[in-house]
């Protein structure tokens, strides 16, 4: 029996609750044992008991392995732990063999700023001046389809707790989103819910939302991608690692109470073996409470500031199962935990359900006995509930008891790290050759390609109004980009920029990118193109790219075609990171994104983080100053396959644009130097939608037009005007150069042997975008087209 007492830890199983406050009104909850507890002793005596391992998602070989590891059948609680920790989501069992490349393909250059590498909750990168930065991107795809608001909201919550777990103060979030066709009736449901959820949760945390992506494609109809990125900063000395060290140190669970949400398969255990008196269906989607999370953030930062915790771990997927097994296996010994000490929202939860619950806004920490009092004082100040669950031991075992009876007795490594690893068969799909042979140029969809000035003007307008190229302000206006007072740049600029140090102006820039169509056409190069674009976006802002986090969204790994896409994408990314000299510091793999046998386009979303010594030097994307020269950097080839133009015409085939990572590196150096030395006032990278999109976006950013002539580009690169405008050749950017800097700037490009062409001048008074050979485009009409699309579909 467990009641509520205050501040008692001496009995190892007492619980405590925070001081009375306007929010904390917990009544005493008395645990009533309505179910038979399957103890380790009982399991040893009853080897033949049927267990619902299949319903929990385990395969026969995996269950046999558990029995082998334990030397007996698992208890119900152990089965719950193994099933969830050995799931694809937690164990990376299908991707692990491939993901190793991120750790293997690492050069000295890539290691020099890495303080904590892949494997922890999030990697940590040195920013200099004693500052460090940590960032990570994760998926919350399936919950966001089932229940878009809560799915997206808790996606933010989870990634933010990952950042706190490293000892960092979260400072910004971003959201790459991919939805079904814009005109499909279900898209509005997912779009409204996900955007409101991200806003509702993120805005309440006081974290500016500084960018992201939005893509509509029918391949995501039944599998929208809701990825979430968070970035945090800390002083070097504040880096915390998730491990439980020091025999006798106390283990504490704090934050929200544990409820029945997010349990999913665990209800199988309850209904089949242990209990027939309560409802068996539990909501599988977690429900978020942003206020609890905000308080938890502040409370954790105060703990860090006082050096009151030895190790800390957030509770995300797999809840207490994950936190206890990971803390224990990353530490130097074992852990003993009394499960009835967990504060519950629902007293009828079984041990297995408590272990698997994914209730949000919870953290687990390891605290020395000397710091217990100070820890409790911080909890009381912020009115955060907590309970002491047990302590760190030197037995090498994770032992979980239920009123003293042992229900889990495992080597924590076998749960957290030694899960199954599969070498899934993969092979280049038979259809790949046919897809790559089907180029856009000359296809049925290419009929009537615009050429006359009026047609080209219409094409440009159609492009910037298209679902993927239109203004995202309908979404971003629902997010707070100002809170914190350190946002230096946000959407729609190429990268989000946040100041870290208010004295020096030191800051970070972030961008996320992916192109599912490119990756479908060629997974190896498509993944590299995502990295190249994110790298380019960060450099465009003037920041030096430093680190990568990736969210690999793919279909079923049991389909050899999909597995090949995944293997190729990881190989491509890891190779490209070597060339660009920036390491992958963390990330996430999301598999089984498919409806029936139809997978989504392989969608590796790549986030790149860069550093600015002074955010005042960041380069915005739009033109402002009249008379400035506009330069196009890089060369243009006829690369329309997989492009937005081809997509608008309903074509997907051929080869994606060519990747040239050395060129990307040189372009990056030019953009960074030009920003540092004040040679450019604006820069916008060329990617989806090509030069046409970049010119219109640069003009609409501040409502300042330009006169552009592309004849030199056409002559040099041997392309026609349509191709120059709509090709998606990589390694290009448009920059605005003050007249006084033109010589210096062009000298720098020449010295580096990088193609640069003066294509026009900023014309502030005109109110138009004039492109030679294209009918005059009024900025008002372009804006109406660009900004009208999302409101038209979503209100």
């Amino acid at each position: 029996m467990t009641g509520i007492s205050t501040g008692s830890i001496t009995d190892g199983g007492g619980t405590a609750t925070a001081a009375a406050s306007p929010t904390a009104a917990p009544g005493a909850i008395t645990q009533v044992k309505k179910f038979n507890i399957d103890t380790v002793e009982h399991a040893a005596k009853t080897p033949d008991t049927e267990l619902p391992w299949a319903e929990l998602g385990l395969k026969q070989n995996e269950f046999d392995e558990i029995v082998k590891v334990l030397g007996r059948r698992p208890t119900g609680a152990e089965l719950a732990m193994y099933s969830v920790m050995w799931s694809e989501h937690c164990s990376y069992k299908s991707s692990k063999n491939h993901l190793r490349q991120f750790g293997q393909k690492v050069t000295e250059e890539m290691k020099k700023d890495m303080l904590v590498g892949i494997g922890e909750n999030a990697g940590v990168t040195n920013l200099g001046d004693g500052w460090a930065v940590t960032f990570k991107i994760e998926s919350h795809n399936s919950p966001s389809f089932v229940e878009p608001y809560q799915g997206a909201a808790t996606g933010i919550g989870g990634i933010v707790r990952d950042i706190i777990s490293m000892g960092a103060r979260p400072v910004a979030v971003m959201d790459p989103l991919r939805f079904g066709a814009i005109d499909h009736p279900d898209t509005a449901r997912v779009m409204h819910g996900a955007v409101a959820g991200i806003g509702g949760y993120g805005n309440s945390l006081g974290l500016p939302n500084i960018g992201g992506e939005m893509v509509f494609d029918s391949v995501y109809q039944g599998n929208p991608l809701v990825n979430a990125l968070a970035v945090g900063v800390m002083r070097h000395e504040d880096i915390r690692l998730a491990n439980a060290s020091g025999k006798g140190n106390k283990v504490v669970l704090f934050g929200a109470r544990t409820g029945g949400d997010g349990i999913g398969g665990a209800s199988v255990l309850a209904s089949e073996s242990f209990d027939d008196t309560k409802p068996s269906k539990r909501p599988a989607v977690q429900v978020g409470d942003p206020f609890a999370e905000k308080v938890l953030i502040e409370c954790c930062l105060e703990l860090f500031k006082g050096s009151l915790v030895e190790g800390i771990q957030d509770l995300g997927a797999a809840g207490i199962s994950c936190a206890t097994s990971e803390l224990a296996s990353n530490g130097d010994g074992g852990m003993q935990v009394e499960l009835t000490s967990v504060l519950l929202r629902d007293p009828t939860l079984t041990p297995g359900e408590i272990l698997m619950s994914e209730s949000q806004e919870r953290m687990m920490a390891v605290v020395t006995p000397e710091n217990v009092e100070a820890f409790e004082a911080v909890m009381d100040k912020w009115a955060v509930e907590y309970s002491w669950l047990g302590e760190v031991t030197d037995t090498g075992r994770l032992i979980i008891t239920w009123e003293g009876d042992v229900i889990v007795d495992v080597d924590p490594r076998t749960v957290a790290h030694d899960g199954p690893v599969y070498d899934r068969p993969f092979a280049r799909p038979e259809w790949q050759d046919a897809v790559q042979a089907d180029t856009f140029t000359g296809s049925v969809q290419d009929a009537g390609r615009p050429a006359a000035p009026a047609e080209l003007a219409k094409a440009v307008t159609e492009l910037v109004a298209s679902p993927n190229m239109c203004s995202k302000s309908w979404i971003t206006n629902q997010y707070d980009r100002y809170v914190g007072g350190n946002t230096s740049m946000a959407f729609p600029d190429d990268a989000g920029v946040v100041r870290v140090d208010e004295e020096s102006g030191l800051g970070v820039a972030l961008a996320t990118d992916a192109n599912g169509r490119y990756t479908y056409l060629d997974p190896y190069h498509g993944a590299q193109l995502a990295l190249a674009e994110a790298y380019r976006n960060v450099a465009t802002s003037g920041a030096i790219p430093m680190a990568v986090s990736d969210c690999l969204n793919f279909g079923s790994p049991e389909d050899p075609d999909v597995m090949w896409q995944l293997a190729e994408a990881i190989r491509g990314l890891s190779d490209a990171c070597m060339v660009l000299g920036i390491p992958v510091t963390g990330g996430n793999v999301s598999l089984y994104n498919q409806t029936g046998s139809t997978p989504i386009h392989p969608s590796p979303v790549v986030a790149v983080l860069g550093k600015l010594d002074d955010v005042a030097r960041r380069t915005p994307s739009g033109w402002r100053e009249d008379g400035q020269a506009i330069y196009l950097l890089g060369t243009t080839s006829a690369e329309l396959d997989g492009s937005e133009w081809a997509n608008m015409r309903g074509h997907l085939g051929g080869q994606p644009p060519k990747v040239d990572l050395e060129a990307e590196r040189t372009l990056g150096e030019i953009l960074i130097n030009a920003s540092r030395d004040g040679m450019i006032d604006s820069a916008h990278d060329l990617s989806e939608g090509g030069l046409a999109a970049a010119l219109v976006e640069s003009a609409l950013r501040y409502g300042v037009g330009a006169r552009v002539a592309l004849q030199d580009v056409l002559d040099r690169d041997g392309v026609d005007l349509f191709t120059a405008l709509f090709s998606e050749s990589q390694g290009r950017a448009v920059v605005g150069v003050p007249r006084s800097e033109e010589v210096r700037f062009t000298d720098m490009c020449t010295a580096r042997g990088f193609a640069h062409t003066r294509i026009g001048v900023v014309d502030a008074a005109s109110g138009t975008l004039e492109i030679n050979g294209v009918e005059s485009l009024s900025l008002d009409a372009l804006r109406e087209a660009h900004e009208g699309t999302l409101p038209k579909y979503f209100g």
Partner: protein
Amino acid sequence: MTELPLIGEASTVAAEPPLAGARIGVVTFPGTLDDRDAARAVRLAGGTAVELWHADKELGDVDAVILPGGFSYGDYLRAGAIARFAPLMSKIIDAANSDAKLPVLGICNGFQILTESHLLPGSMIKNDHLKFLCRDQVLRVENSNTAWTVDYQAGQEITIPLKNQDGQYIADEKTLDALEAEGRVVFRYVGFNPNGSRRDVAGISNAAGNVVGLMPHPEHAVEAGFGPESLDGVGGSDTDGLGFFTSVLTKIVGGK
């Protein structure tokens, strides 16, 4: 007294005398978000920001108080409805109503707390379009005689960020008439009413002019490089909001 860790510490830069002698309290409730921003604004204006904790029993030595934006206690009930009962709020209410007329500024959630506290009339309900909205908003300063607006000119237009879900100001007609008659409508939305507020009211004051509340966020428009002009390029300047904070310093130091 709370300690704010890491970035945005309120005490990092010492202000210059004599303004530094002016101590502006910034209250943090659980769920407050813009407290560091408000403290930064005070500092940039030249004053000294003093961190106040909602559970403090005494107000301490402050010359003015800011209730910053955020979602106090999550605002799951009604925005500001719980924060109004915080121990420190009763001290603030007393000081605002006293002969000393403590200057109090409520921004966004702070405005909501002021109406819940009955320091200001009316109330805020959900935006008429039912969405959270973040945008740069043009306001007209209708009254430049309050403690928080003396450094503006009457009729001056300023651009500062607006960001909220429950920003629609409502009051009965009689109250609205009285507010207008007494010059207590301090700010009006210009060009676009972003939330359906009655008579385009963006901010109001009490009769004495020491208590002012508004929905938009002046503390997000106080620093070059981080305000509406830099982020969104909508015109105006990055620092249109700084006048709120210099106004109260003028009032305190100048004794106006």
